[in-house]
């Protein structure tokens, strides 16, 4: 197959997702309001006025609202990934997914296009959020905002692939509440998004161990280091590996002959 149709397909899927996002103003607002409420309300209440002890990648003491920003960036991407999976379940219920799946392109390619589209939507959300945080006074080094982009792509693929995998398992839209309770909240709260790992360890060693194993912790740390012009090899390796494994499972999940789709009649 010539490359142009592939690119055409990519443009189609990405364009649809971006347009859908831009036309859904309430979704855009909701995606922004959620982390901003955390930043302005939660972080203010827990501001730790005497500062968060010096921890990598920060080179000096920081306020809690500075600490929490990379975690909220991860939160934006996590919710966006799940939102994307929700739309896949919706598409399947409405029957529109069949149009996508009868396309002449391989299914893995369509899914990767879908993931890229969802990731780009989350990237837009993240940069708008960071712009507001910048005006609020939380300012990372200028180059950090560029270094952040690859980290956002990896995280977007990771949580997006998780969403795709879940969408291949969920039969009905109503079951999405379960995803919230059993996937999003544990992933977010049992991570370094809100508190440094050393702080969690002081509270509970078990929770610390869970948080240290949570891939979302590594995604958040990858984002945190990138935003402050640092490269965290361990976090990047784990995040990329988890993203690849989840993507493979999602592709398998959408394979009509072998995956969950066959059993669930998608």
């Amino acid at each position: 197959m010539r490359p142009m149709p592939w690119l055409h397909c990519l443009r189609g899927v990405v364009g649809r997702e971006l347009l859908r996002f831009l036309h859904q103003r309430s979704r855009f607002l909701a995606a922004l309001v959620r982390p901003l409420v955390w930043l302005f309300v939660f972080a203010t209440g827990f501001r730790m006025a005497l500062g968060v002890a010096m921890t990598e990648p920060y080179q000096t003491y920081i306020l809690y609202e500075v600490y929490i920003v990379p975690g909220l960036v991860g939160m934006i991407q996590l919710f966006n990934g799940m939102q994307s999976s929700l739309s896949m379940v919706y598409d399947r219920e409405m029957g529109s997914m069949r149009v996508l799946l009868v396309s002449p392109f391989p299914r893995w390619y369509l899914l990767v296009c879908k993931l890229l589209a969802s990731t780009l939507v989350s990237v837009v959300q993240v940069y708008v959020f960071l712009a507001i945080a910048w005006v609020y006074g939380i300012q990372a080094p200028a180059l950090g905002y560029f270094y952040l982009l690859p980290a956002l792509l990896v995280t977007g693929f990771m949580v997006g692939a998780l969403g795709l995998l879940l969408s291949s398992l969920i039969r009905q839209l109503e079951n999405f509440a379960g995803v919230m309770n059993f996937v999003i909240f544990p992933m977010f709260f049992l991570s370094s998004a809100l508190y440094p790992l050393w702080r969690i360890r002081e509270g509970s060693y078990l929770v610390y161990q869970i948080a240290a194993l949570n891939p979302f912790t590594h995604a958040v740390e990858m984002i945190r280091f990138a935003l402050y012009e640092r490269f965290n090899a361990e976090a990047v390796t784990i995040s990329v590996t988890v993203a690849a494994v989840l993507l493979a499972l999602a592709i398998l999940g959408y394979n009509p002959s072998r995956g969950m789709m066959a059993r669930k009649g998608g």
Partner: protein
Amino acid sequence: MSFLTRRGATRTVAQGLLGPVMGGLFLGGLALVPLTAQAERIFVSNEKDNTVSVIDGASLEVIETIRVGRRPRAMAFSSDGSELFVAVGDDESIDMIDLETLKVVRSQSSGEDPEVIRVDPNRPYVYVSNEDDNIVSVLDYERRSLVTEIPVGVEPEGLGISPDGRWLISTTETSNMAHIIDLEAMEAVHHRLVGARPRHVEFTHDGREAWVSAEIAGTVSVLDMQETFDIKHTIRFDVPGVPRETVQAVGVELTSDGRYAFVALGPSNRVAVIDQQSYEVLDYILVGQRVWHLALNADESRLYTTNGVSGDVTMIEIDGLRAVRSIPVGRFPWGVIVEP
């Protein structure tokens, strides 16, 4: 189902986003940008370690640790800049470090419990506050002799000397007073009540004012040094979200251009930034735990703070007024001074 509802618009949006993606990937591989290099050395006295840490201004790393007497606190350079004097309280002496070899080359007896020292800009004298004796000792560091002893209030602590060498102010932490000493007559000629437990004195570079910090009061009293020697203004601090009792004013530094004053606020972990002309508090900068003393570098582009409890030194960039890096040193860093 159509994935492409508005083809042209879609292409524009997608292309607009793919560009930065590739740019970001490229930039992600670039090397980190180093801090602006500063050829200066920063000396930090570690009260519990009996050492002086030497930090390289370019790398902001400790390059040498000098062993000195017991309980080193205040430091000052000799007038010719060849030696660093360190008050070592438990050894009741002043250790003198050669700045080329970074070794203690001699030591001079200072009287009981020397805490703060100042060097006379005109004469080879070093002034020492002897906390337990209620006096300020005047030592000649060339002749290695005691010149005189000046009685002041109870528990002298802070010392400040005017740029022309005319006035010395000694603060006494139990009397809560600033004693203004005429260095021609070598006696205290004025006494002024200031805030509770005065800690530190710093003259403005034009010599018109002296800023006296008070630890328990959490204030800075600005004394008029031209005519009345009275308090002309009192600066108070209110760090949002921080308990009032943790706001304890200690170290003071003033820029020579008359623009900024910086005050270390102890366990509130903040350095206050003040407009020297209006006395308005402009900002609070978060640093390490229990910030104690401050030092500006020669070109006044950086401010260094000692953070006693967290055992580090924070470097603040004056341009932008932001804490850039904290450097671990010894235990309980007390004083800091930058090589001129």
